[in-house]
């Protein structure tokens, strides 16, 4: 990927001043893409960008916001650390006269942030679940890999899956483990689950990293052909897995689109005083990626129309 | 706090503390076997006994540090249980331990008052504490500032602090376990004066020392221990050195050991104008322009007072602590500043001053300690050969006559003397040309002393060059072929033990005027 480091230098530190980008975890390609996109867009618009990550630690997020305020940035693009915990941070920035634009995840109060552009996790989960159920033929035993329990998206997606699956009585959930969005843990936990339930037919995972871990485990156990795996996020490795047929489907989060919108609205707000979009909460629907459309996946998290 | 029983000069033979039928087990070691022991008001009771006889163990029990496995204590005829040092202190019993027990990171004042602070309004009353300490130091004729860090004090001065702490408690019974092992003759005199004052006030003293003459001099009562049992008691009047030694070792052993006359080979070790900065980084020299030589088969004694710089000298020769200027030659080769392993390979090794800190690896067995310096000799095809090691270790144990359950026994299960033999044996197993020993007999009984010196004689006869540090004039004269005297980091004289008198040697070391010149003040 491109270098997120050099921010002080780089293009157009001319007119606009700085826009702070605060994402979740730069060691993860999903948020890396979010950050890169934001940075590129911002600099294209002639502003400077600083990129930081709070690693879903609300206290760290607080400090980053504080520093952004001290830095008198023009706007903040934030991927919040928790819906409730982020409220005071966002409010603080807003009170300090700095508009905050949320990407990817929402906060539990409205009217503070200028806009909350969220990928519709519930809808995405439904898409994914439907595709997966179809692949399963509507019956069989399955296990679930659950995201970081302190992250509300884990619950949202899990519920989304459940909502669809509950309609199929022949689908039996025999196990669930938390793998904290992580590939290493995904694999180890999956190996445990395989040992406990050697006869499973399917795996639903809260995100691609865990799904990819699970796939490795299934490969080792020689079960990959009969077990249907569902991922979420649509990162490059996952799409590759879909192409290889080891993953039934993954749900592409339109993070690139969302981030672009956020930056656009931020800039328009800075320059014209309004976001140019009627309502604060804007949810962008997720897109299902299966074998059929996998080759349209040109760049990380980008699907050609 | 029990007030001191002040019965003035009148000192009746009444017993304050009585240990009845005390026995003590350490694991499987029977350290005390049913001992009956009495402490008398206003008297100095001296304990004699070889290393491991059980003296310290009994004292620890009297001071509440250890609990007896059997038997009990009676204080003023009433049975008492001393569950902790604090309880003992509350009963007016305090102890100066054989090994130093100080916090190096704290000041002298803090060390003396820790655990029993003088408080004012909930806070520690530092001023009055400092005042008390100053008075104590005056009484002991030491000029040590109460605020000095203990880590900045010499061994001797640290021992003085220990003594001061014991004095600062108003006690009826004061136990001194080897209080003088690091003191200069002058400091010992001061201590004895203080002891006399105390006894005059009716304080009972229990005194342990391996400096036998010294101990006999101060004693009112003598008690002799031998492997865990009390084998003899007598009044000071009717004891002398031979009697004590006889009782200690169970046979009448000669206290005098002298190597036979013989002319020595050519120079093995020669030191030229060596200067060593003070280890503590106070801008002074611990060793100032010292030159001397030791020949094959020669035993040279490095005599001097605490703080003369001998430890720094021998340690630097052994490769610890840098030599700032001058050179050291071993068989004519310059070995200045070589690393320790290289020095040992070339044949120069040190038996350090502080056994526990620098001599032994406590977590290892006797055998492992012995073989540690000569492992390379036991490597066959890249690997340590067990058989080779066991053989050599067995020989080593033979060679220095260590009394041990076996090569596998934990080193901590040996008594001081035998531990020292292990340290010496370790170096001898490397086949050295030059052997350096720093206070090799500190805290070691006559029996062991004799064995260690005859060991040195035997090796010297085989051509080993020996340079040993001692602060005991008797030892200096009897055991050496040549005496080199150091004072304040310089060589101030050289003597032939056959012709020179104790007095002139001690005079040269500045012993007589030590009280006036505090140690550590720069020369000229």
């Amino acid at each position: 990927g491109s270098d997120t480091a050099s921010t002080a230098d780089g293009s157009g530190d001319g007119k606009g001043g700085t826009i702070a980008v605060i994402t979740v975890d730069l060691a993860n390609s999903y948020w890396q893409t979010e950050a890169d996109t934001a940075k590129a867009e911002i600099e294209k618009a002639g502003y400077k960008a600083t990129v930081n990550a709070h690693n879903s630690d609300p206290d760290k997020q607080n400090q980053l916001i504080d520093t952004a305020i001290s830095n008198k940035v023009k706007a903040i693009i934030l991927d919040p650390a928790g819906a409730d915990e982020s409220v005071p941070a966002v409010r603080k920035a807003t009170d300090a006269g700095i508009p905050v634009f949320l990407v990817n995840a929402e906060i539990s109060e409205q009217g503070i942030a200028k806009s909350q552009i969220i990928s519709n996790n519930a809808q995405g989960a439904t898409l994914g679940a439907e595709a997966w159920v179809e692949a399963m033929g509507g019956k069989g035993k399955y296990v679930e890999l659950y995201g970081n329990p302190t992250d509300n998206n884990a619950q949202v997606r899990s519920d989304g899956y459940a909502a669809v699956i509950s309609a199929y009585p022949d689908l039996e959930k025999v196990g669930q483990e938390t793998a904290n969005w992580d590939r290493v843990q995904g694999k180890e936990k999956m190996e445990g689950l395989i040992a406990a339930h050697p006869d499973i037919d399917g795996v639903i995972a809260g995100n691609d990293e865990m799904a990819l871990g699970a796939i490795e485990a299934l490969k080792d156990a020689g079960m990959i052909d009969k077990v249907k795996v569902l991922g979420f996020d649509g990162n490059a490795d996952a799409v590759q897995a879909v192409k290889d047929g080891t993953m039934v489907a993954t749900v592409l989060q339109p993070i690139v689109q969302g981030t672009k919108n956020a930056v656009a609205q931020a800039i328009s707000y800075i320059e014209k005083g309004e976001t140019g979009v009627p309502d604060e909460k804007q949810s962008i629907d997720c897109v299902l990626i299966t074998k059929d459309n996998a080759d349209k996946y040109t760049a990380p998290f980008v699907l050609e129309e | 706090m029990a007030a001191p029983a002040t019965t003035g000069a009148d000192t009746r033979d009444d017993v304050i503390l009585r240990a009845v039928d005390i026995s003590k087990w350490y694991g499987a070691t029977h350290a005390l076997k049913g001992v009956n022991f009495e402490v008398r008001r206003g008297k100095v009771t001296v304990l004699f006994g070889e290393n491991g006889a059980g003296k310290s163990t009994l004292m620890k029990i009297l001071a509440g540090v250890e609990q007896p496995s059997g038997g009990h204590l009676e204080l003023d005829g009433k049975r008492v249980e001393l569950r902790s040092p604090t309880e003992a202190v509350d009963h007016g019993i305090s102890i100066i331990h054989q090994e130093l027990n100080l916090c190096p990171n704290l000041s002298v004042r803090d060390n003396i008052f820790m655990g029993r602070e003088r408080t004012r309004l909930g806070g520690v009353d530092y001023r009055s504490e400092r005042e008390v300490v100053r008075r104590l130091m005056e009484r002991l004729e030491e000029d040590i500032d109460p605020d000095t860090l203990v880590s900045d004090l010499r061994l001797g001065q640290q021992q003085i602090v220990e003594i001061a702490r014991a004095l600062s408690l108003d006690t009826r019974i004061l136990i001194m376990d080897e209080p003088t092992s690091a003191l200069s003759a002058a400091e010992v005199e001061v201590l004895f004066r203080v002891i006399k004052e105390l006894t005059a006030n009716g304080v009972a003293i229990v005194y342990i020392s391996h400096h036998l003459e010294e101990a006999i001099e101060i004693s009112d009562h003598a008690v002799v221990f031998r492997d865990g049992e009390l084998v003899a008691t007598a009044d000071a009047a009717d004891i002398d050195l031979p009697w004590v030694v006889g009782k200690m070792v169970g046979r009448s052993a000669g206290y005098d050991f002298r190597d036979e006359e013989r002319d020595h080979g050519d120079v093995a070790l020669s030191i030229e104008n060596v200067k060593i900065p003070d280890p503590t980084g106070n801008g002074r020299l611990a060793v100032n322009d010292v030159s001397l030589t030791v020949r094959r088969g020669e035993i040279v004694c490095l005599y001097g007072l605490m703080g003369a710089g001998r430890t720094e000298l021998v340690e630097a020769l052994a490769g610890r602590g840098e030599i700032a200027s001058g050179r050291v030659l071993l068989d004519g080769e310059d070995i200045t500043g070589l690393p320790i392993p290289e020095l040992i390979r070339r044949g120069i090794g040190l038996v350090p001053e502080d056994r526990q800190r620098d001599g032994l690896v406590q977590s290892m067995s006797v055998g492992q300690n012995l073989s540690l310096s000569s492992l390379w000799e036991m490597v066959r095809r890249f690997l340590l050969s067990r058989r080779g090691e066991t053989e050599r270790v067995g020989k080593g144990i033979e060679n220095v006559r260590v009394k041990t359950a076996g090569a596998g026994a934990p080193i901590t299960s040996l008594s001081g003397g035998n531990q020292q033999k292990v340290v010496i044996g370790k170096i001898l197993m490397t086949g050295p040309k030059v052997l350096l020993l720093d206070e090799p007999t500190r805290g070691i009984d006559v029996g062991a002393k004799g064995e260690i010196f005859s060991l040195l004689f035997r090796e010297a006869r085989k051509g080993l060059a020996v340079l040993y540090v001692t602060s005991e004039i008797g030892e200096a004269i009897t055991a050496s072929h040549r005496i080199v005297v150091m004072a304040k980091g310089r060589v101030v004289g050289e003597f032939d033990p056959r012709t020179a008198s104790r007095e002139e040697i001690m005079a040269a070391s500045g012993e007589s005027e030590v009280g006036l010149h505090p140690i550590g003040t720069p020369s000229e």
Partner: protein
Amino acid sequence: MSELSQPAAASPGILSKINTRALLLEGRALIAFLLIVVVFSLLSPNYLTPDNVITMTRHVAMNAILAIGMLMVILNGGIDLSVGSTVGLTGVVAGMLLEGFEITSLDVILYPAVWVVIVVSIGVGCLVGLVNGILVTRFNVAPFIATLGMLYVARGIALLITNGTPFSNLTGREELGNTGFLTVVKGAPLGLPMPVWAMIFFAAVFAVVLNKRPFGRWLYASGGNERAAELSGVPVKKVQCRIYVLSGLCAAAVGLLLTADLASATPSAGEFFELNAIAAVVIGGAALSGGRGTIRGTLIGAFVIGFLVDGLVLVGVSQFWQQIIKGAVIIIAVALDQFQQNLHKRRSAKAAISATKPPERTPAPA
């Protein structure tokens, strides 16, 4: 801070000698600190603005409070890895109580008053510390292991209580009389945020404890030579146990401050805080082997870390470089110490060789 250094520096204070030595080490930390300030204020005009200084100090405060507790433990030669988890746990407990504590058996919901909440949370913190202390003193578990275990246990309990989802309505309700937690704990009297006040308070109190109370001397003594301290009647075990309680107490305070600051109690709060706290203490000139260290130094250490991290963010250094630089600074700041001491020794050695009249004696390195 100057008035904090008072008791230590004032000659009647305990360890006046230690402090002359400590000054060297702190001096080193201080240099690092000034260097950081200078560099960043050159790199960014916004660095030294009053607002930002206050902000950064608030960030420092939390770590500083933890570090003060950690110092107690480290002075004894111990270590407390569980403080981070304790922060999380105590915060969660506070959150739970503020949202209303349900006793299912009686099915009533209790809404304790704010002061009760605070007391209980602090109590929980002390309890965690007490368990650590008992494990270390009674069961002779190595501090590293005991507190490592507690790190998992406390975090696990916090997660159990919240079941992963944070408590977020902490404002309380008038009719329940449990309002005011946020306003009180989050207030900023005289323009200084509460955490800063807390830091000053803790620093002052603990400085007094260390320098004026017998407890302080006992702590330094047992850290310097435990056996010696014990033989001279210092209640070593008691001291050892108490310091972990103190550390837990500090963690609890941070837990409350943090919860108020976030207006919600997350079980994941405080992760890895222990590492920053330890770093602060050591940068401040304390020895992990025990017996050496001061409040003043610890504070400086905390400021070094805090002002560095915020500075890096402020001038827009990349996240990845931030980590590298932070690690490097921790190492260098401590390595400087050694370097300085050696330098000092060598110089005095030279002096000794060449001097006719040697310089006055200076304390030896521990």
